[in-house]
């Protein structure tokens, strides 16, 4: 079965030869297959991958007729157990990059991963994903990946590397010199054990974990309060009132996917349930969480502790606990306090600030409210972000002092994302031998003598324990594409063991499971089941909650003078690890809708004061220049910059995009903070920088687009906010009889109350439908190709606006205006209510684009595939492997748009027919509805009376976008309800 992959790879090489003209060897299969001609025509084709790989693969795949594509990786039961060309296999796996965690299913075709979906079996992420997870599949096909291990600056082979490194290590052991293994937080039990064994093999090696985003203050606070250095587990699904200080728990904080899932369960209104949770957000920059808050307060970072302490005191007074002296603030926390008290034990207070005092206060409040053991669980702590940054600081000192003779860096990039990069780099210069375990040649790897190139996570074996007792597994879904080796395998090899990590892990689990024989029974069965499910919940009787010991609380922070900086992670870019992922680079930010760059978010008053406009350029701290976005909801006296940009060694797409803001991290008494640095902002006169934003008008112009109401009004009258619907329904009269569908009429509903605007669906759609990446300039020209967009509107007070997120894709109108105007009948209506688009019939008059009131149709302005002008994944032989073979790559000059993932519908229908059964509601899912972490998007058959969509359509909150046009969309929206008093 090795053959399988090498074959496909050989083939992949053939491809390369095919594509370069000087040595085309005539292969009849290709001359008549799509590729050559398609390249002459400059027309890239759907299955051209399949055509090349497919057949040779199928051939060999079938030699190993029924063998698993990869070792004993076991796909889901309802998937075919053998690799059949043209039939997708799903493998359960886990995405963990040292920061984000998500339990996933990997969809493979012809044994190559093409799409990532959430794993419903996971108790943590519950089938949700976020944009970064969705996009991570593209990293596998990144041209920036290293193809071989590197010795110095040149490619090498593993023998040499092993020999040399081993020598170095042994020398160091002999001479007892200090060597440090630097990793991100490792949540894999097996790996942890392995590392410990490795260290016992090399006692001179000490192991340091470091996180890009630090939570050590939180752990410290808990250590003081509970005696354990932990991050407790949060249950937002049990909380009625959530008060969050600078914690973007829907976007980036700790376990965003899990938290979004939990949060959204309390954001669903049905005939039975008419209650919502209430979210208070105190923050400096408008985060995704903030944009979903019912009540949002803008505070300066330096105010936070004071505000928190006031909140504490309010609650303390009410509950008769002892209060502390707190400075007076302008922020009125009484309302939040009342709500919290009202929902004692059913509330959560969190802070994303890495500051001991603040975290202590937060804990104290939660303690007062009796949330521990109810909404917050200390018995099953979260294992993410375990690092203690003191270690790292110590390490840097030691390195500079020359105390460190060797450094092994795995999957972390301090040369880029350290607050004080300089001293680290200097220190690194003083280290005798430096080994990097990296996938790409990142800033740190560049400085190392050895680069032991590692697998992509889709090529590796691993396990993970993000939360105590909850495990999940990573299994390879493709053979290593390049001459790489998994980090753990290196350690094993250097320990002189003769095994690979897979079997090591298996052993580890054998021993682990053996403790639970009675629960588990036969190991092999379990082992297979585990790998099949990808998750394993280890239910143990709850040990008692840790006891709370009070600490003195104080608001240390003096109100800072000058402009305070609040750095933040973008939903798309995160920490910048995937800065070379074009999908993420081109993903519009849910708040600013800007793509490709980072920028300074400036509050309105400051903008007036400094006479700054959108796209003016400012000099930040005299260090670097960035364009300005005047951001409603930015706390006055603060500015915000996104982290994760300004990579210099990320790869073709990512290099030099934006500016690196990590040097502006705020380090105070040993804790590194995103917020709090005081910066200076000077306008660079006469200089502007055009941002690639996908939306320039932010006001709804009083049009009934996003219809909203408050919970109170909703309870009184469910139609509130949706009165327009009744009027429009009345006014809609027509000459023609309404078309009736037989059997199937696909429909979709989007619940604006649940939707958080996380833009996960956008990337899911892009991955599923081969949507091209078009680059900064084209986005500036307002030509972004995404079939699905998240419209964002502001309303109310510009200083602190209400934010509306609205996913818009093709509404599949029954009276579609676009259909009437296509001269060549390229777009018309299907028997299943789809507004279908036949690309190969389209001649590109673009009339349909004009006549679409929702403006969801996209035009292929250029050849976006196989075109050096658009040198992204679709122009790279490697990158093209991510294309979905069921969906054609559209040619230049044709119009495209959301097809409701017709390929998925068709395959499910076929499945049903083959199994001679009716379709089950919910089994057919589009990419967006499938991936939505809040289940805001429902999809189904409007002809099926019991389907979810039909129920939704009966709701009083249901309305169609622009329904007064009588386009009769198959997509409907449910009004947004905010949990506010009105």
């Amino acid at each position: 079965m090795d053959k399988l992959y090498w074959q496909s790879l050989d083939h992949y090489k053939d491809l390369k030869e095919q594509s370069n003209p000087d040595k085309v060897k005539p292969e009849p299969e290709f001359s008549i297959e799509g590729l050559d001609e398609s390249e002459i025509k400059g027309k890239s084709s759907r299955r051209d991958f399949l055509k090349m790989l497919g057949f040779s693969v199928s051939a060999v795949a079938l030699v190993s007729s029924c063998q698993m594509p990869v070792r004993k990786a076991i796909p889901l039961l309802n998937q075919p157990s053998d690799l059949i060309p043209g039939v997708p296999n799903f493998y359960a796996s886990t995405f963990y990059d040292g920061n984000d965690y998500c339990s996933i299913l990997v969809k493979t075709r012809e044994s190559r991963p093409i799409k990532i979906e959430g794993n419903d079996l996971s108790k943590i992420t519950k089938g949700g994903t976020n944009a970064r997870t969705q996009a991570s599949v593209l990293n596998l096909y990144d041209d920036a990946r290293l193809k071989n291990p590197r010795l110095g600056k040149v490619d090498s082979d593993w023998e040499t590397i092993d020999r040399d490194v081993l020598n170095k290590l042994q020398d160091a052991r002999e001479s007892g010199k200090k060597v440090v293994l630097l990793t991100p937080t490792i949540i894999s039990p097996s790996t942890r054990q392995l590392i410990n064994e490795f260290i016992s093999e090399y006692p001179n090696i000490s192991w340091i974990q470091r996180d890009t985003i630090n939570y050590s203050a939180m752990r410290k606070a808990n250590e003081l309060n509970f005696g354990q250095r932990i991050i407790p587990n949060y249950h937002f699904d049990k909380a009625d009132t959530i008060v969050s200080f600078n914690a973007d728990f829907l976007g980036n904080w700790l376990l965003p996917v899990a938290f979004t899932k939990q949060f959204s369960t309390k954001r669903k209104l049905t005939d039975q349930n008419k209650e919502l949770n209430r979210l208070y957000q105190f923050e400096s920059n408008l985060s995704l969480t903030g944009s979903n808050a019912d009540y949002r307060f803008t505070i300066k970072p330096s105010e936070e502790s004071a505000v928190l302490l006031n909140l504490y005191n309010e609650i303390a007074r009410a509950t008769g606990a002892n209060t502390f002296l707190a400075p007076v603030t302008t922020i009125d926390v009484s309302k939040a306090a009342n709500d919290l008290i009202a929902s004692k034990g059913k509330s959560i207070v969190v802070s994303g600030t890495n500051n001991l005092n603040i975290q202590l206060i937060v804990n104290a409040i939660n303690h007062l409210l009796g949330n521990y053991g109810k909404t917050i669980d200390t018995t099953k702590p979260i294992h993410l972000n375990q690092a203690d940054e003191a270690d790292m600081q110590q390490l840097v000192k030691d390195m500079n002092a020359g105390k460190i003779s060797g450094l092994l860096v795995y999957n972390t990039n301090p040369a880029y994302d350290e607050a004080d990069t300089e001293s680290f780099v200097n220190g690194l210069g003083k280290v005798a031998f430096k080994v990097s375990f990296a996938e790409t040649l990142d800033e740190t790897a560049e400085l190392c003598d050895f680069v032991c190139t590692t697998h992509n996570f889709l090529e590796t074996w691993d396990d993970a324990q993000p939360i105590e007792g909850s495990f999940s597994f990573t299994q390879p879904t493709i053979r290593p594409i390049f001459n790489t080796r998994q980090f753990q395998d290196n350690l094993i090899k250097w320990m002189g063991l003769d095994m690979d990590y897979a079997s090591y892990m298996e052993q580890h689990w054998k021993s682990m499971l053996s403790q639970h024989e009675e629960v588990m029974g036969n190991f092999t069965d379990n082992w297979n089941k585990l790998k099949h499910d990808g998750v394993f919940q280890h239910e143990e009787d709850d040990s008692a909650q840790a006891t709370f010991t009070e600490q003195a609380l104080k608001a240390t922070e003096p109100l800072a003078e000058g402009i305070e900086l609040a750095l933040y992670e973008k939903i798309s870019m995160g920490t910048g690890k995937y800065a070379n992922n074009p999908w993420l680079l081109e993903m519009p930010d849910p708040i600013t809708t800007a793509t490709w760059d980072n920028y300074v978010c400036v509050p309105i008053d400051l903008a007036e004061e400094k006479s700054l406009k959108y796209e003016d350029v400012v000099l930040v701290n005299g260090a670097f220049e960035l364009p300005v976005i005047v951001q409603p909801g930015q706390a006055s006296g603060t500015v915000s910059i996104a982290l994760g940009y300004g990579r210099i060694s990320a790869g073709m797409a990512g290099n030099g995009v934006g500016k690196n803001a990590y040097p502006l991290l705020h380090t105070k008494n040993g804790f590194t903070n995103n917020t709090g640095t005081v910066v200076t902002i000077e306008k660079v006169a006469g200089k502007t920088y055009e941002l690639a934003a996908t939306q320039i008008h932010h006001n709804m112009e009083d049009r009934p687009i996003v219809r909203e109401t408050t919970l109170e009004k909703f309870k009184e009258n469910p139609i509130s906010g949706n009165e327009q619907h009744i009027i429009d329904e009345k006014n809609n009269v027509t000459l023609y009889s309404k078309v009736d569908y037989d059997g199937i009429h696909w429909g979709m509903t989007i619940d604006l109350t649940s939707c958080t605007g996380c833009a996960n669906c956008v990337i899911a759609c892009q991955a599923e439908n081969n949507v091209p990446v078009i680059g900064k300039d084209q986005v500036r020209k307002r030509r972004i190709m995404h079939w699905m967009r998240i419209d964002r509107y502001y309303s109310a007070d510009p200083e602190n606006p209400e934010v509306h997120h609205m996913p818009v894709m093709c509404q599949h109108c029954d009276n579609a205006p676009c259909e009437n105007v296509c001269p060549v009948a390229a777009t018309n209506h299907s028997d299943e209510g789809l507004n279908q688009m036949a690309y190969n019939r389209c001649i590109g008059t673009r009339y349909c684009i004009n006549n679409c009131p929702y403006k969801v149709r996209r035009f292929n302005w250029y050849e976006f595939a196989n075109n050096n002008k658009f040198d992204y994944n679709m122009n790279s032989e490697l990158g093209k492997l991510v294309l979905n073979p069921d969906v054609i790559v559209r040619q230049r000059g044709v119009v495209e748009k959301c097809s409701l993932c017709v390929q998925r519908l068709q395959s499910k229908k076929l499945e049903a027919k083959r199994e001679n059964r009716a379709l089950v509601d919910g089994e057919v899912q589009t990419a967006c509805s499938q991936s939505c972490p809040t289940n805001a998007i429902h999809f189904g058959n409007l002809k099926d009376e019991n389907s979810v969509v039909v129920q939704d359509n009966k709701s009083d909150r249901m309305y169609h976008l622009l329904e007064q046009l009588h386009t009769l969309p198959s997509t409907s929206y449910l009004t947004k309800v905010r949990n506010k008093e009105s």
Partner: protein
Amino acid sequence: MIFNVSVIKSLLRLKGLLLSGFFTLLLFINLSYGQTAEAEANFAVCKACHTIGGGKLVGPDLQGVTERRDEAWLIKFIQNSQELINAGDPEAVKIFEEYNKIPMPPNNLTDDQVRDILLYIENGGVVAGAEVGETEQEVAEEVAVEDADTELLVEMKREDARHLQATFIAMVVLILLALFDLLVTKIIKQKWIPIVILIIAVIISGEVIFIEATNLGRQQYYQPEQPVWFSHKVHAGQNQIDCKYCHFTADKSMHSGIPPVAVCMNCHNQVKKGKITGETEIAKVIDAYNNGEPIEWVKVHNLPDHVYFNHSQHVNVGKMDCTECHGDVEKMDEIIQVNDLSMGWCIDCHRTKEVNFANKFYDQYKQLHEEIANGEKSKVLVTDVGGEDCQRCHY
């Protein structure tokens, strides 16, 4: 002769490999096994590797297999042996090891069908064996007779193509002549004669151009040379091997799948000498297998990139016979594309073909069911359930 042909044709149409006159016989033997005819048909696939009492072939001799193993296990194993093997079933693994790891390809037989086959093995086997012997001979001969026709047919169609070109050239010449006479040498006094000729010639040549233009990118009668001279006539025609024995993903996947060398080896472990080519061609296969390199067959039937075609939809759900699109493959030595695979060709079929409306999937089509109930409709065509929609094939 004609009679023969038609008889054979109708016989070959029958799914799998049915043997003439044999049913009646069978039915007399054991009425209790009404299904045995079908069972036999299915078993023909097995025959490639198994005998009943004929000793080992690729796979074990199946005589008395029903005594040896319990039915449940057998059914499981026959339906998908690899599942069992992967599940680590000791017996399954043992057999797998014993018969040098040649996998028995999975199939989609129902439990009943398998039981039937088992019954068939128990008793009918021997009789069948004898009968098969003869009839296969007959069939083979008659097929041989039949071949001439297909060859002729194909040849004729090729002729048409050549005719087209000839006509075109002729017309061009005519046009030139007419013009020449009209303008320079004014031999024909009646001006209208050359003019009429001109017009007619232009029209005809235009017609030819149109025909040729529409055939651009199409490859009717395409018959490439294959790396291995493989005769479908011998395999599908004379040896009566079911198409889906080799192209066994046809009813699971969009691709019918080009058979892996391993499948060839199932038989060619034993059969080392071909009827026509002797050892040379088979040797290629064996080498390929031993060197672990797949044979790079030339794909004959190609659709444009913007067309999505799914074999399982047509073969499995639509219960269509392979020959309906691929022609009488069992009469072709080298495969030739008989149909032009144009959109019109697809649509025409969608407009005329009946769907298996009994399929539970169609229960939701209430209106159609009513119409059938009250007799407005006698049958449901593919187009009635959206067979003419663009996005059935283009997405």
